[in-house]
């Protein structure tokens, strides 16, 4: 046996070891997730269902909910995401500076607190408030993705740092708002900065050490995107076909892909049956479409990747050549539902662009694409053969060109729905979706690129959807099998809180007035409670010592407060992207508050009739 052969053998063995290692599931997380008493990941499961089997709180007794306890994070500004509950401990996070608290559920005392030292220099490159969407749990660790792109693992018992790594560089406009996700023994994280010409990507890290295992860009050369021109498939003329060579490069002018956006700040999901990881990519940079001719692939795209290798299995671009900032990052919900009468393994995605997409999550085939807000007007429909939107000329900001104000586009840049995640109830087969009901005027203008500086290039003005109920939001039930709205509950303001569905036939969401609301499966409001601030967090539920609890973070802020946090005095210094600065309103709240509800006394499932 020559040394060459030995080496080859060794490599094969090493390769086999690496594969078996990466195929290991995290037993702790799997075990925790299997019990509805815990809320062990941000969505409660890997499929992004935001559904709980707990049924102590029902449509009959939900009206009896009272505040059980509260916890203040001491931080102002928007509180997105929600707490995790594992056993007798809750893990709560805050916006920048991204504190993490471990709370003993027995007496709400603090087990530990972690406050990272972060360079506030990252704040001016955060486009849309200094939010953070929460922590992840697995392998005895709590994983935090800090704003300054540091990914850190904390010992869940002590809060001490186990490992730390950087996934980006704030000096070139990169930051993070996404929650890290743990699938098997890997931590998956993304990047924000689409308004700064950042080149989006997803990275996978070893849960034990933080070591980067793979990195997959959204745009650029095939090798960078971990794309196989012959094997990565996409919907083409009514069937799946290989994407072909340089599928991204061909859709950009020159080197523009290098600052092409396609950031990855949403919610990811994972299907163990196929080992596929799903997520969406954001807008192409800039917002001025005239400056970046072409489809700008693969921005605005649903990606399915093999978790172990990162290789792209299939892709589907929803909004080619974006002209409205309709980021495609919203959650990918994996649901087994009937489509056209047949049971399918689907991926359901309610996009910012106002269309609800249902795809076969194994193959990537496009099954359904319908408007989930009837006011959506930028496209008449999705051509089911090509998968492309039929764009209406008069709402095309690209056709209009620079310095032309295109009026009455629905939805607004915020989308018919932003990142606030929907819930899926396997019990009803329906999706409960928090939505925006807002339209806009959009005027693109020419902008030059400087690393670390805003790269926006459009002025936007928003208003409630005309000829409707006058409000700016709806909470809807969506049938993804048929692409139909089942019911729609109007709200005065956009609904920016994540929903929760439960086996108790009661569904929850929060409003900007600060109400947490409970509705039955028909959309009838059963209960509401005014928390101290607007709700942009996600409603979660768990059980402790035999009692079911409901919790939600309230606290909304915006750029107005950023100047203060950064120690800035000039009004425009804290600004990232669009919008003007207004005087800070009088905040008297003690920062974000987690309000926890339960039904007093002994409640048994049987008591609900």
């Amino acid at each position, binding site marked *: 046996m020559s040394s060459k052969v030995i080496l080859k053998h060794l490599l094969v063995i090493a390769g086999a070891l690496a594969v078996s290692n990466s195929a290991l599931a995290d037993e702790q997380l799997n075990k925790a997730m299997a019990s509805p008493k815990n809320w062990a990941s941000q969505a409660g499961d890997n499929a992004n269902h935001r559904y709980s089997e707990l049924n102590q709180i029902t449509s009959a007794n939900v009206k009896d909910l009272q505040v059980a306890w509260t916890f203040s994070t001491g931080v102002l500004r928007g509180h997105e995401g929600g707490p995790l509950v594992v056993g007798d401990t809750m893990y709560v996070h805050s916006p920048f500076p991204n504190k993490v608290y471990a709370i003993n559920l027995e007496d709400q005392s603090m087990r530990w607190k972690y406050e990272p030292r972060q360079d506030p220099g990252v704040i001016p490159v955060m486009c849309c408030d200094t939010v953070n969407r929460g922590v992840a749990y697995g392998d005895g660790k709590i994983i935090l993705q800090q704003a300054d792109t540091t990914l850190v693992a904390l010992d869940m018992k002590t809060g001490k740092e186990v490992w730390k790594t950087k996934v980006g560089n704030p000096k070139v406009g990169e930051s993070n708002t996404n929650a890290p996700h743990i699938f098997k023994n890997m931590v998956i994280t993304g990047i924000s900065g689409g308004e700064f010409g950042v080149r989006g990507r997803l990275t996978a890290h070893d849960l034990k050490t933080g070591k980067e295992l793979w990195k997959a860009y959204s745009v650029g050369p095939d090798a960078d995107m971990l794309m196989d021109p012959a094997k990565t498939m996409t919907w083409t003329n009514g069937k799946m076909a290989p994407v072909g060579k340089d599928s991204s490069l061909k859709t950009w002018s020159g080197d523009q892909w290098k600052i092409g956006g396609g950031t990855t700040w949403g919610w990811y999901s994972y299907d163990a049956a196929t080992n596929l990881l799903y997520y969406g990519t954001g807008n192409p940079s800039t917002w001025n479409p005239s400056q970046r001719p072409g489809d700008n692939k693969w921005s605005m795209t649903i990606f399915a990747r093999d978790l172990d290798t990162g290789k792209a299995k299939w892709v589907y671009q929803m909004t080619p050549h974006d002209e409205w900032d309709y980021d495609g990052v919203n959650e990918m919900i994996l649901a087994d539902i009937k489509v056209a009468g047949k049971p399918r393994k689907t991926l359901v995605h309610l996009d910012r662009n106002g269309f609800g997409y249902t795809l076969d999550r194994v193959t990537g085939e496009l099954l359904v694409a319908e408007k989930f807000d009837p006011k959506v007007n930028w496209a008449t429909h999705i051509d089911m053969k090509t998968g492309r939107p039929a764009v209406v000329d008069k709402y095309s900001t690209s056709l209009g060109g620079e310095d032309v104000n295109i009026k009455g586009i629905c939805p*607004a840049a*915020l989308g018919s729905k932003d990142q606030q995640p929907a819930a899926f109830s396997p019990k009803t087969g329906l999706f409960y979706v928090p939505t925006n009901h807002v339209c806009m005027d959009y005027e693109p203008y020419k902008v030059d690129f400087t690393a670390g500086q805003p790269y926006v290039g459009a002025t936007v003005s*928003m*208003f*409630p959807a005309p000829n409707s109920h006058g409000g700016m939001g709806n909470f809807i039930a969506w049938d993804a099998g048929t692409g139909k709205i089942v019911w729609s509950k109007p709200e*005065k303001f*956009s609904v920016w809180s994540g929903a929760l569905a439960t086996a108790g036939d009661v569904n929850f969401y929060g409003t900007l*007035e600060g109400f947490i609301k409970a509705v039955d499966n028909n959309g009838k409001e059963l209960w509401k409670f005014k928390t101290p601030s607007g709700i942009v967090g996600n409603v979660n539920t768990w059980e402790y010592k035999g009692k079911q609890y409901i919790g939600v973070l309230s606290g909304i802020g915006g750029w107005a407060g950023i100047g203060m946090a950064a120690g800035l005095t000039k009004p425009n210094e804290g600004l990232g992207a669009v*919008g003007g600065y207004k005087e800070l309103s*009088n905040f008297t709240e003690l920062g974000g508050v987690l309000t926890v509800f339960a039904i007093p006394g002994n409640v048994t499932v049987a008591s609900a009739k």
Partner: protein
Amino acid sequence: MTCLSPRLASCTLLLLAIAAPMTAQAQEFPTSSRVEYVFECMKNHDSKYEYLYKCSCAIDAIAKQLSFDDYAELSTAKRHQGLGGERGAEFRDPTLVKQMVRKYQQVEQVAANACFIQ
């Protein structure tokens, strides 16, 4: 119905019941939301003790003018005028929200005038 009997108290109650629409509206405000208003209002006036009375007076005066849901919506519109960024546009841009803010300012002014609030 006559009110000549010695049962004056019950008679008064009946009269109050007739005047119910306004009363019902006022009752509709959860105590917690009234207390919250008073806390915030006191804080905005250097936490002076006399503002316990003035701010309580003010929220009662507001509750006489608005339903609780309207109060929640209008006060939210005003509070988030300072919300920046893309999201803040929802509160900055629409005429509807501007009208809501003006309406709430008027309501608060009426309350301030009625309660010696400066």
